[in-house]
């Protein structure tokens, strides 16, 4: 029975060897050589150090293309023209599905024709040397971003390749991304990833790990996201990770977003072991964007404003072309610069908004309910607790495609635009908290002159792309 326990060294080695035999480039991984390579990197490429020592939010975009030279060019552009502080390398979908053969075909085709047939950088196929060329060529820390349920080989190669930050986790890269990967399976596989990061950490190379906070990206109630972050943070810490960046995706209500980021930081420090350095990352709105760059810039700016007030350690920016999918590098840079301008104009201002403490308190109480139910379900073991709590529905994520979560919880905005829970299903929450949500949603229903119903949920899902925060009934709309 899988538990929250550190993988023994010999077991780590056994899995590592097995994993590396899955694809030829796995042979290029040599741990001692990798430690030496990391030690050779200058201070300003050490991801954890740069992030943890920053005195204001660092900005990071999303970006990945198949060919090495294109990826270098793209990242250099985002650094120079976008003034990014931290850079990403987003991995392609085939690699996320461990389809290295298909990724290879796509990469070969991209090299031959120049067309990008892959939607990201196939780091496994590029191998350790390819990764190091990227790290060498780009003058900033780079994180691996993906969405891979079984990221063991990807981790082995990118860690050896010089990357010092790795996004994802067993819940956050399972529940929102895939239907059929069992949670037990992904937890086991991510224990290896974290254990490998821990092995580097033991040798002084602190690999930063970043659970994916936005989850399904659509109106996720803050306490659910934070509970998942705390679980993944604890699992990583158990395996020896010492630099953990907990994530949270903007819901668009400034008070709730600032409160949630405060709660994330607070609870992260409380629930994770003292030896872990906890940082936070704020994702600009992950839901549907307006099909209009001008209005998209408004959405991005509201994210920048929120970041200026909450001051997370990192902000993942969006581009004005979000609606149409992968942005041009110009649009990607524009998203960075718009965010930067808003943050830099607002961050020195003393903006203290009423009601943040109360909202933070509510979020913390809710999160504690969820953490308590996890511990209870697992008799103190977080892994078993998580598995059983998701199984019973006591822990749930709205709009989860995965069979591992019930996905029966439904959120809706209240009259102030804060995300509340409309359908609780089996989520294990104290009754007095449920009453608070009910009262807030009832207030909205009164304002709108309609019953609380799934229509509110549907209207809220589309609201921001339609230009509003709250999905009010049409009859109440503009003239």
């Amino acid at each position, binding site marked *: 029975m899988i538990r929250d326990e550190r993988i023994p060294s010999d077991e780590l080695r056994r899995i590592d060897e097995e994993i590396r035999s899955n694809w030829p480039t796995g042979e290029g991984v040599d741990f001692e050589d990798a430690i030496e390579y990391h030690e050779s990197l200058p201070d300003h490429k050490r991801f954890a150090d740069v992030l943890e020592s920053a005195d204001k939010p660092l900005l990071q975009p999303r970006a990945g293309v198949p060919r090495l030279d294109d990826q270098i060019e793209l990242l250099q552009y985002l650094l120079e023209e976008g003034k990014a502080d931290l850079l990403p390398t987003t991995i392609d979908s085939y690699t996320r599905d461990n389809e290295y053969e298909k990724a290879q075909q796509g990469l070969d085709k991209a090299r031959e024709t120049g067309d990008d047939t892959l939607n990201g950088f196939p780091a496994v196929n590029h191998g350790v040397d390819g990764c190091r060329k990227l790290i060498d060529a780009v003058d900033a820390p780079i994180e691996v971003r993906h969405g891979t349920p079984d990221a063991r080989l990807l981790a082995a190669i990118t860690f050896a390749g010089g990357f010092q930050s790795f996004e994802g986790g067993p819940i956050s890269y399972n529940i929102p991304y895939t*239907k059929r990967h069992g949670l037990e399976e992904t937890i086991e596989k991510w224990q290896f990833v974290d254990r490998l990061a821990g092995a580097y950490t033991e040798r002084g190379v602190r690999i930063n790990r970043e659970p994916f906070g936005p989850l399904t990206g659509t109106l996720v109630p803050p306490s659910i996201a934070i509970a998942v972050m705390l679980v993944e943070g604890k699992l990583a810490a158990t395996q020896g990770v010492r630099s953990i960046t907990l994530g949270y995706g903007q819901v668009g209500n400034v008070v709730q977003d600032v409160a949630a980021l405060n709660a994330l930081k607070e609870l992260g420090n409380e629930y994770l072991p003292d030896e872990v350095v906890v940082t936070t990352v704020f994702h600009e709105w992950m839901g549907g964007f307006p099909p209009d760059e001008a209005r998209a810039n408004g959405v991005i700016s509201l994210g920048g404003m929120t970041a200026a007030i909450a001051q997370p350690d990192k902000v993942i920016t969006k581009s004005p072309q979000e609606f149409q999918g992968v942005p041009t590098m110009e649009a990607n840079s524009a998203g960075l610069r718009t965010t930067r301008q808003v943050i830099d104009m607002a961050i020195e201002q003393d903006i203290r908004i009423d009601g943040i403490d109360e909202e933070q308190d509510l979020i913390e109480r809710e999160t504690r309910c969820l953490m308590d139910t996890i511990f209870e379900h697992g008799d103190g073991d977080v892994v078993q607790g998580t598995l059983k709590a998701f199984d019973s529905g006591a822990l749930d994520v709205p709009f989860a*495609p995965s069979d591992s979560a019930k996905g029966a919880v439904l959120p809706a905005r209240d009259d102030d635009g804060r995300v509340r829970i409309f359908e609780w299903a089996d989520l294990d929450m104290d009754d007095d908290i449920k009453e608070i949500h009910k009262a807030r949603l009832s207030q909205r229903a009164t304002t709108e002159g309609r019953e609380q119903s*799934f229509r509110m*949920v549907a209207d809220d899902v589309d609201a921001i792309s339609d230009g509003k925060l709250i999905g009010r009934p049409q009859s109440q709309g503009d003239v």
Partner: protein
Amino acid sequence: MVFNTMSHTVVLGVIGSDAHVVGITILEQAFSAAGFDVINLGVQTSQEEFAEAAVDHDAEAVLVSSLYGHAEQDCQGFHEVLEEAGVDAVSYIGGNLAVGQDEFEQTRRTFRELGFDRVFDSETDPEDAIEALREDLQIKPTESERATISS
């Protein structure tokens, strides 16, 4: 919100390797609220899973969602699979059905030719799909239901 006396079953799912779940969650809620029995197969559903579920639950409608732009290839041969399994149901498809900038009328024609009875774009309101299904299944709303619709 009940109407008529007998219940009608619809099978709902996202076809192919598409993992967009929000749309069908909303559809599930909408069809349930409108009185249908909804079998939600979730995301990443194969043609065979649609057919199997339609047979098992004696569904009167198969509602296919696709948002990632590969609907056409995912739906090749779908109606042959349904037919072989003995499914006799109305079939709808909706979502972002083409990657490019095609006129929607052309997209509609393509999917009508593939065998779908109705084709919807991603801006379609769930109520419109419900309305269409009631018409196709010749379900008359009850008085109370009619009141709700007109409100």
